[in-house]
């Protein structure tokens, strides 16, 4: 499905990402943890085209999409959310989802049906005519997730989806993310500081430190890796 090979990103003399490689199989959730500045978001930015990597490759279904423009990567099937949600604030929730389907060639009725389905799934249907700016931060994250899912991506990159979200909405987010591989044939790269959620959701976990992979494996492997305990989890 999604594969990155020796991905490197350098800003002047600063190496933010240093030769990272991994493979995400279909219908799997890859959890990524690491301290601030460990290169997690830089890695997502290199995958979805916001940054052009200094070296390395991004492959989707074996196709090299390295350095493609953001919109072309999105059309190829990679969706992305952000730590600070980037919704269209002065538009209704329905319009937010409508715009995201512009390139899908659907009729107005089809677009509406898909939008309603996702608004119901993220429990925002009753607010469908409200402006996105009226939502709480957590609700905006749900809307942003719905906005990428209406275009049926093959892979979604979720950057800190639980940051600043109240426990109730975080639980809803977890339950929605859990269904993405099973019900929507979608693989997920989940970047989060919330270890409980990462352990609960991920099939495979990568621990990043200073732009490189420090450790990887199942939740149990990562939890018990002495290098991780020393560098990230503490004693």
């Amino acid at each position, binding site marked *: 499905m999604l594969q990155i090979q020796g991905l490197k990103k350098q800003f002047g003399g600063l190496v933010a990402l240093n030769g990272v490689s991994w493979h995400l199989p279909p219908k799997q959730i890859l959890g990524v943890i690491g301290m601030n500045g460990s290169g997690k978001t830089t890695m997502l930015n290199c995958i979805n085209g916001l940054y052009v990597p200094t070296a390395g490759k991004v492959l989707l279904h074996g196709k090299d999409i390295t350095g493609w423009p953001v919109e072309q990567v999105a059309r190829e099937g990679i969706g992305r959310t952000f730590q600070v949600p*980037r919704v269209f604030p*002065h538009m209704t929730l329905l319009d937010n989802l409508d715009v995201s389907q512009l390139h899908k060639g659907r009729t107005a009725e089809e677009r509406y049906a898909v939008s309603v389905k996702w608004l119901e799934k993220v429990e925002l249907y009753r607010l469908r005519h409200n402006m996105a700016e009226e939502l709480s931060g957590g609700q905006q994250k749900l809307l942003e997730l719905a906005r990428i899912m209406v275009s049926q991506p093959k892979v979604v990159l979720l950057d800190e989806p639980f940051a600043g979200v109240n426990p109730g909405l975080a639980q809803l987010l977890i339950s929605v993310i859990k269904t993405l591989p099973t019900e929507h044939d979608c693989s997920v790269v989940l970047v989060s500081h919330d270890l409980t959620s990462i352990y609960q959701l991920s099939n495979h976990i990568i621990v990043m430190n200073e732009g490189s992979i420090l450790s990887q494996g199942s939740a149990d492997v990562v939890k018990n890796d002495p290098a991780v305990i020393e560098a990230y989890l503490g004693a």
Partner: protein
Amino acid sequence: MQDLVLQGIVNGLILGAIYGLIGVGLNVIFGVLRVVNFAHGEFLVLGAYLALMLAQYAGLSPFWALPITFLVFCLIGYLLYFVLIPRLSKSNDPETSSLLLMFGVSIMLGAIMLLLFDADARSLEYEIEPVFLMLGNIILPTIRLITLAISIVIVALVAWLLYGTLTGKALRAIIMNRDAVRIVGIKTERLAAVAFALGIGLAGVTGVLTAMVFPSFSPFMGNDYTLIGFVVIVLGGLGNPVGALVGALLYAVTEQVASVFFNPSIGTICGFVLMVATIFVRPNGLFGKQVMR
């Protein structure tokens, strides 16, 4: 006195609709592209000259010139976009660069019009009967009423495009957050070209309307209209096409009503005082909202 004030309000509303069109065109371009179109007034005057040529060489009335000018200017705008605008994105400060670029285009267009049409003031000739209508003691020039109706229809069409169509929603989304639009897979380049074409098309069509309402036009008048456009969008809110219309109505009514009590120059000053006061109270304009960049 009461009749004079009412007359001023009516005149203001009619002029405001035309000023609104100037602001809407300018605002669509600025909102979507962040391009400060300093040449908007010159495109407007060029639209008036096209109507004049259509009348002189093809015998077409200004009413026929309206749709033709719109289409021709949309095409010019669409092509011009790819010549001028994409290069701006390579600049470290695209907005300032766009201002300088379009200022250059403004000077160039002014010079071209001067070469082609000379410096003499021209006017569109047409006949409308009756010349004016009376509403009590208020005089309503027929052509101004017609241009008011046309302006309202055009603004309604632009509003429908922006709020009722998927392309329009995408244009508004670009105004709010261009990066987020790209992230959902929309190619912003073509949409930006559409916005530029629409803005230039609106400038052309507004030029025909101003030539119908005002007694004359000349190659030197572009800057005046650009200035009005900027006042209007500062009042209404940068990047908000609907706000531009409201701003235009306020500006024109203030100007016209003030002209009832003082001489017209003071009326113009009152319009600018309103703008300055608005900036003090609402720096983003009456309908301006903070956008994410």
